[in-house]
């Protein structure tokens, strides 16, 4: 597999899912319990933040590749 620039969406999503998997495995094997009400909001916030951050980064990269011209109405 070819190495590429850091993909924040994959990184954050992977970290969230891996941590949640470990939490559920630990709680299943011990007496520790987890409050499921917080799981989905955390997942949504993390994925949404990753998506927005990735979009902003892509937008910056695009503007570097295609700089604005004088009089260009973009923006």
């Amino acid at each position, binding site marked *: 597999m070819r*190495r*590429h620039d850091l*993909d924040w*969406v994959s990184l954050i*999503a992977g970290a969230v*899912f*891996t941590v949640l998997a470990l939490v559920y*495995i630990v709680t299943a094997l011990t007496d520790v319990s987890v409050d499921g009400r917080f799981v989905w909001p955390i997942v949504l916030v993390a994925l949404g933040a990753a998506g*927005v951050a990735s979009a902003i980064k892509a937008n910056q990269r695009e503007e570097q590749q295609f700089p604005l011209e004088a009089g260009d109405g973009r923006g």
Partner: protein
Amino acid sequence: MLTITMIPVRPRAHIGVAPARSTREGSGWCQGRSPMWEHRIGEDGEGMTENQPTIAEPVDPTASSTGAPETPGTGTSSDSSGPSYGAPPPYPPPPAYPPQKPALRRSRTDRVLTGVCGGLAENLGIDAVLIRILVVVGTVFTGGALIIAYVIAWALMPDTPAYAVVVQAPGYAPQPGVPASFAAGGTGTYVDPATGAVYGPPTPVAPLPRTEPRSYLGLVALSAAIVVGGIFGIVSAAGGSVPGAVVAGTMLGVLGIGLLLGAWRGRARWLIFPALLMLLITQGAAAVDDYRPSGGAGDRTWTPTAASQDFQLGAGSATLDLRQLPPGPVDVTVQLGAGELIVLVPADTEVQLDGSIGAGEFDFPGQDPQSGVGLSFTHSITPVGGSTAVTTVDLSAEIGLGNLEVRRATS
């Protein structure tokens, strides 16, 4: 012999690789950017190159639309044997293309997860970041229901083709290999006698090779997760005891590791969707594991008659009928792993209800049903008509995955 030809030079984005990119660039074109026209000069065809700076006599553009085309062999531009090419070939006027709304496709260039938001933004002509923010906020406020809409959109919206397309129709690009000819009205092709290049209508552009090799990381991770689940299944079938949350959690962990690897190598963002599904399964399995009720599986009807009774069911549908209870205080406890519990309460009975549901819904008389994950409740059901309760039930209900419904018994 001096030859003057008029070669329009395309704006940068005249040919776009993908509609996403061409939307912005192309919109500039559509909004009134005129193509730049380059005058080219050459003598006997020598020294003519495509982008050579030029000096030229101004030519009336209107002549191109009315001038009669010249034919090969009569001193026209397409006659490569003759030293003279006659008058400059007609050229088409600058095209005025109406703005075109991009098709509703998943974007290939403005993509975070699947390109749904990017494609929608291109179609609507607004910033994709705004769409994404709305999706995230909407998802939170709809309790995750918008994710279903997103998945449906992902399934319905076609992907943008991964090859270059001619966005506008110009015919200004050199098209070697196209038979030389002049068409009436100056919209035909023109052969450069010096270089052999042919300028004419566009021909379909062959698909470009993928700029990025297909990544099998996601497929490998998903397959590995399935294999892990299968191994746990074999262990369980062989007599081992593995909690369901451990099985599902391990599979979720494999998907998470696949995503983590994809942050640096390969591409595996689509694993987010199976991971979300696996997270839901893991939560359900954990909720069932927490209660670990015995009592097997199937349909049950419980009719307590003593002052204190416990009922358990692993999986299935259970009905708790409180109509046979003796007068006075009664204590009833119910544990249900997965399924549905219906409680029938007679009119002269007061019930003090408390308990929890790992994932599911509860529906009590006189209030709207509530659903979700990690539900806990405390509810009081008083006798009908405000009469004095003959029987007072302290009911505790623990449900892993499923529904609880409390009904007033008719008799």
